[in-house]
C-alpha cells in the first residue's frame, strides 16, 4: 500500500508544482493549496499509516495500546493544516487586493517594480 500512497501523494505534488509555475495569480494560489495538501499527507505517511484505531487511550487504561495509530505525525499535521489555511487566506487577500488596485491577475503585467528600473543603474556616473 505504501507505493500507492507514495504515487498518489507524488501526483498531487506534481500537479501543485505545475500550477505554481503558472502566471495566473489564482492558479498559483491553487498550486500552493495542492502542495500544502500533499505535504500534509507526506508528513502523515512518514509516521507509517494503516487502518488502525485512533491514538486515544481507552478509559480505565493508562497507556496507549500497541496497535493504535502513530500520534506524533497527527499532531504535526494538525498544526500544518491550520498554518496552511492562514497562508492561503493571506495569499488570496493579496490576490484580491492586487486585482482591485492593478486590475489584472496576470503576473506578466504585475511588473511595476521592474518598470522602476534597477537601483544599481541609477548611481552610475561616468
Amino acid at each position, binding site marked *: 500500500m*505504501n*507505493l500507492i500512497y507514495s504515487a498518489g501523494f*507524488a501526483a498531487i505534488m*506534481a500537479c501543485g508544482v505545475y*500550477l505554481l509555475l503558472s502566471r495566473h495569480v489564482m492558479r498559483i494560489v491553487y498550486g500552493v493549496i495542492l502542495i500544502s495538501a500533499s505535504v500534509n499527507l507526506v508528513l502523515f505517511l512518514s509516521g*507509517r499509516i494503516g487502518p488502525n484505531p485512533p491514538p486515544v487511550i481507552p478509559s480505565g487504561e493508562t497507556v*496507549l495500546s500497541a496497535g493504535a495509530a502513530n*500520534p506524533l505525525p497527527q499532531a504535526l499535521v494538525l498544526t500544518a493544516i*491550520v498554518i496552511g489555511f492562514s497562508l492561503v487566506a493571506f495569499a488570496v*487577500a493579496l490576490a484580491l487586493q492586487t486585482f482591485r488596485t492593478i486590475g489584472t491577475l496576470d503576473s506578466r503585467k504585475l511588473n511595476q517594480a521592474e518598470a522602476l528600473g534597477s537601483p544599481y543603474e541609477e548611481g552610475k556616473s561616468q
Partner: protein
Amino acid sequence: MSLISILLLSALGSVAAWRVGRHVSSGLKHVAALLPIALFACFIFHIEPVASGGVVTDTAAWVPSLGIDLAFRLDGFSLLFALLITGIGSLVTIYATSYFSEADARERARFVFLIHLFMTAMLGTVLSDNLIVMFVFWEATSLTSFMLIGFETAKTEARRAALQSLLITCGGGLALLGAILLIGMELGSFSLAAITARAPELVASPLLPAVIVLLLIGTFTKSAQFPFHFWLPKAMAAPTPASAYLHSATMVKLGVYLLARFDGIFAGVPAYGVILVTFGLLTMSIAAFNAIRATGYKAILAQSTVASLGILVMLIGLDGPVSSVAVIGFILSHALYKAALFFCAGTAIHATHITELRKLGGLAKHLPFTAAAAVLASLSMAGLPPFVGFIAKEYLFEAQLQSSWSAIAVIVAVLVNGVMVAVAGAVSLRPFFRGRGKIEHVHHGETPGLLIGPMLLAILGVVFGIAPHLIVDNLIAPAAGALRGSPVQVSFSLWHGLTPMLGLSAAVVILGIALMWKWNEFHRAIGQMRLVQKIDADRAYYRVVDRVLGTARATTRWLQNGDQRRYTLTVASSLLIVAGYALVTGGPLNLTWSGGEILPFPAIILILAIVGCVVAIRSTSLVTGLVGIGIVGYGSALLFLANGAPDLALTQFAVETLVLVVLMAVLVRLPTDAPKTRSPRESRIDAGIATIFGFLVFGGLATMTAQPFDTRLSDFYGATSYLEARGHNVVNVIIVDYRAFDTVGEVAVVAFATLAVWALLKRRRAGKGS
C-alpha cells in the same frame, strides 16, 4: 604607558575629541591636537629604551584558540613610524583645524575625527606583531582613507577617487590576507617576530612563491607601485590636510613598511630583491614622467610621492649593508619635506581657489612665510646641502653603488632624482616667486595654524641636516638595526669627502636645473606624446570596472527579468537538482512493497483526489478549478479518517470548508475565467519539471516508507500522556501540553495572518472613502 593603552587612548581619544570638537568655541578649536601631541610624547619616552637595544612588547588574549593575540611590539623601525605618524598627525590636526576654520564646527570635527581614526589605524598597523591584528588595522587604514578622500561627498571626482582607492587597496588587502594565512598555515604562527626567527622554514616551503606574490600585490597596491600607481594621484581629491597625511608620513608608506619587514625574512630569496628593484625602477620612471606631465599643484606633488615610493621599494630590494640606512634616511627626509610641501600647496590653493600650477604666481607677496617654508622644504627635496634630503640622497647612491646591480639602476636613479630637483623648483619657485602680479588678491591669508606645520617640518629638515647626531643614534641606527636584525654603524653626516656619490649628486643637480630651465617645453612635449597617452593605467582600471559592472547588469537582467514564472522555475529546478543529487548519492532507491495489501477505500479516494487535481489543472474556469481543489481537500480528510486520525479529518473538513467559502467569496469579485498564460512550449517545460518533481517525491517517499520505523518518540507520547498529563487523546495532549509553545506560535501565526488580511482589505475601503 603600555602599547595597548596607547592604542586605546588613541581610539577613545579620537571619539572624545570629535564629540567635544563639535561644540567648542572657535578660540578652543585646536584642543583636538592635544591627542596626537600626547601620543607623540608617549613615543618620545620610548626612544631611550629602544635606542639602547630594547624591544617593548605588550600582549592581550584575543582569539587564543586560533593563535591570534593582540600582540604588539615596538622596535626601532616601528618607533620611527610611530613618531612620524603621531608627529605629523599633530601638525596635520592643527593645520586642518585652521584650514577648515570657516567651515561648520561639526564638519571640522568630523574631518579631524577621521584624521585621528586614520592615525589610530596606522599606529596599530606599525605596532602589531601579530599579522592578523596588523591586517585588521591595515584594512582600517584603507577604510578611513576612503572616507578622507571622499570627504567632500558632493564632488563626483572625490567619490570616484575614494571608490577607486578603496577597491584597489582593499583588493590588495585580500591578497595580503591570503599571504598571511599561507604563512600561518606553514609556520603555525602569525607573530612577525616568530616568523622572522623561523625565516629559513618559510623560505624552504613550497608555498613560498604564492606567499611572495600575494604579499607583493598587497603591498604594491597600498604603496602605489606599478601597475597600481594610478590611484594615488587621483586621491588628491581629498582635502589638502588629508593629502599631506596620506602621502607623506604614512598610509602609502605602510606597504613600504611591510616590504621592509619581510626583506629580512626573504633575505635568502634573491628573486624578492630583483622584483622589488625592477618594480621600484619602473614606478620611479613612470612617476617622474607623469610629474613633468601633470598640471595640478597637488598632482605634481602626488606624482613625486609615487616616484619616492618607487625609490624606497628599490632601496629595500637592494642588497648590501647600506641599503637599510638609506631606506630609513629616505623615509624620514621624505616625510618631512613632502608633508611641508603639501601644507604649502594647501595654503596656496586655499588662498587663491586655484589648483592649476600654471595659473599661480607671485604668491610670496601675499603668503611670505608659506613661501619661505616651501623653499626650505623643496631644497631638502632637491637634495641640496645642508638639508637632510642631501644626506638621504647620498645614501641612496651609496646603496646603489655598493649593491650588485648594474649601472642601469644608477642611471635611472640619477634621471629620476633630476626630475625631483626640477619638481622641487617647480612647486616652490613658480607659484610663489615667478609670474609676479598674476594673483592680485587672496581669499585667505596665512594664519599661525596654517604656518606651524610647514615651518616646523621645513626647519627640522635643515636642523637634522646640519646636526644629524640629533637623530642618528636614537632613531636612525635603531631603525636600521631593526631592519637588518643586527646593530648597524651609521655615519649619517653631510660631508663624506669627495666620493662618487657626491659626483652623482652634482650630476643630479645640474640635470635638475636644466630641466627646470626648460620645464614648459618638456611639459608640453611629454604631454603630447602619443605613447604616454596610450599607456594609461587609470583608463585600464575603468575598463575593468565597467566590464565588471556590465557583467553584473547582464546577470541581473537575466536573473531579475521580471517574469515571475521564470523565478519559480529557477527555484524549482534548483530544488530538483539538490534533492535529486541527495537522493542519488544517499543510497539505492528502495521500491519494495510494504504497509499491507491494497485497500480499496483509500485507493479510490486517492484516484478521486488525482482526478480533482487534473480538473484544477485543465479547467480554464477558476470556479471549476476550485471544485477540483475541494475534491483534493475533502479527499485528504477522508484519507485521514481511514487511517486512524479522526482529529485530523475533522480539522481538515472544517478548514477545507473555510477555504472554499473564502475562495468563493473572493472569486465572485474576480473574473472567473483564467485564460492560458503559458505558451504551449512553456507548458510542456513546466509539465516536464512537475513530472520529474513527482517522480522524485515518489522515489523518496517509497524508499522512506520501506525503511524500518523508529517508534521510540511516538511510544514515549503514548506511554506518558495519560500518566503525566491526564489526557486520553494523545494527539490532543501533544498539541496542548508537550508542544504547547509550538501551538502558541501557531495561534500567533493565525492571528497575524488575520491582521494582515484585515489591513489589506481595509486599505481598500479607506482608499475608496477618500
